[in-house]
């Protein structure tokens, strides 16, 4: 029997070893090239099309500046410190508003998910708020708070918090019932069940909601900055864009739009994508399987 036991143990060890040996990962360089090359190509095609339109004189050059003109505007604005200043002003406003949206939306979402009466009472209202263009809040904001930073943050918060709350609700509703049974059979009840099972299970869905909330926050911020004008208000990207309108400088306007776009891409690429990728790959989700 001892021999048979040793056999079994060896068979088991063999099976486990087969399972745990991971396939070799592709080289880092090759992975970067595979990810970056398509993006570079797409950008090159768009730039070429733009330059072609300029060369064909589709519109006069003060209405359709060449990429090189926009670039020189960018360099000039950069040297004067306008770009870094505007990016910093906008991002700090956006981050502040987004943080408040998290503080409001997260408990609200938890409450909606756990208390049926609350969900029935305000569920459709919050869903409707999410589809309401947040620029409408600029008007009551200006009347209530005046043309200042508070109005801008007010608009950002109202634009972003519904996505946070709805993300939390959807994430909690999608908790696999098996995990709830497991938690309960391990002896977790009430708060412990939430802390050890329900909330961690909801994390990926909640983060997806937060990512969406950030994009809503960023849009709301630009709308609010574009409209809210005041001499004692710091210069954000929306105001930079509006100064292009006031001085009839298309080059400046296009540059501002590109910077707004770049900041959006950068925040998603540097904050949300890595965060969500890390959380998901730990759980074997999202194409990150070994």
């Amino acid at each position, binding site marked *: *029997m001892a021999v048979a*036991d040793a056999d*079994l*143990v060896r*068979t*088991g*060890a063999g*099976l*486990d070893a087969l*399972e*745990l040996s991971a396939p070799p990962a592709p080289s880092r360089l090759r992975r970067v090239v595979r990810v970056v090359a398509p993006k570079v190509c797409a950008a090159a095609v768009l730039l070429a099309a733009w330059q072609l339109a300029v060369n064909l004189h589709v519109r006069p050059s003060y209405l359709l500046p060449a990429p090189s003109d926009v670039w020189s505007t960018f360099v000039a604005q950069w040297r004067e410190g306008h770009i870094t200043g505007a990016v910093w002003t906008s991002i700090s406003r956006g981050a502040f508003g987004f943080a408040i949206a998290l503080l409001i939306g997260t408990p609200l979402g938890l409450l909606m998910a756990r208390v049926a009466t609350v969900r029935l009472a305000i569920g459709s209202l919050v869903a409707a708020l999410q589809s309401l263009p947040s620029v409408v809040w600029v008007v009551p904001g200006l009347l209530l708070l005046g043309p200042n930073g508070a109005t801008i943050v007010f608009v950002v918060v109202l634009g972003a918090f519904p996505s946070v709350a709805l993300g939390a609700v959807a994430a909690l509703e999608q908790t696999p019932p*098996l*995990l709830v*049974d*497991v938690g*309960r*059979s*391990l*002896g*977790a009840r009430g708060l*412990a069940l939430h802390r*050890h*099972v329900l909330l*961690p*299970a909801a*994390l990926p869905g909640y983060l997806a909601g937060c990512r969406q909330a950030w994009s809503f926050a960023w849009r709301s911020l630009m709308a609010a900055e574009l409209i809210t004008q005041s001499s004692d208000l710091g210069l954000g990207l929306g105001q930079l864009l509006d100064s292009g309108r006031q001085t009839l400088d298309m080059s400046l306007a296009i540059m501002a739009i590109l910077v707004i776009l770049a900041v959006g891409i950068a925040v998603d690429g540097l904050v949300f994508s890595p965060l969500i990728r890390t*959380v998901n790959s*730990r*759980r*074997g*989700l999202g194409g990150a*399987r*070994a």
Partner: protein
Amino acid sequence: MRVLADGTAAVSPAWPAFAGPPAIRLEAVSRVFGSGARAVDALDGVDLEVGRGEFVCVVGASGCGKSTLLALIAGLDRPTEGRVEVEGGRPALMFQDAGLLPWLTVARNVDLPMRLRRVPRDERAAEVDRLLRLVHLEGAADRRPHQLSGGMRQRVALARALAQRSEALLMDEPFAAVDAITRDLLHEDLARVAADRAMSVVFVTHNVREAVRLGDRVVLLTSRPGRVAEEFSVDIARPRRIEDPAVGALALRITARLREEIGRHGRR
């Protein structure tokens, strides 16, 4: 003792080796889902006793209320009628899916039931190490569940169940989704652990050979409503292997009885 249609006697629940007060006792337990014309009798008047340290396998066709039975014993569900008594606290429960928490490492999964019981940290760490060695997974402590095979996940689930320090272990077709060689190994691990710790086990399966390989007793449930049709004591010396002729012979007898039971539904 009940006498069955074919003249053989049903084995009485208190089979001699497990005399004394039972670890689990079900008395006239019924569970009805829904109400009125659409009500489904999942279980109807089930009496079952599991002795301390006894390994009871429950077999039956699909829809015989096997999973309902376990949920009732585990305290996840309540009977419509009858009584369920479990000695020695909440039983540990294992499912067909290992049900590991995917955001925790293997070690943290095993650790969780002890954290919930507020066992001191260093004591927990030592116990996790010991349990992982017991299921031959000491090398996988820092892995995540998705990196393991189905059989390895079930061994983690077994280690986690043992970490609950329960006297009873309930298993709902835990090895249904693993290959035959892995299942052999899991049977070996489970039989060894259950015997070492003298655990009272209720093991639900639709695999009759598996039931005979593991159990001290095999309980056959009828379907819709689930009732105890017959009980078979397994008087086969251990260690057993699933390919032992004695295991096969008894499995054939039980399977014949199960076929008969399923056939009744076709004739209606």
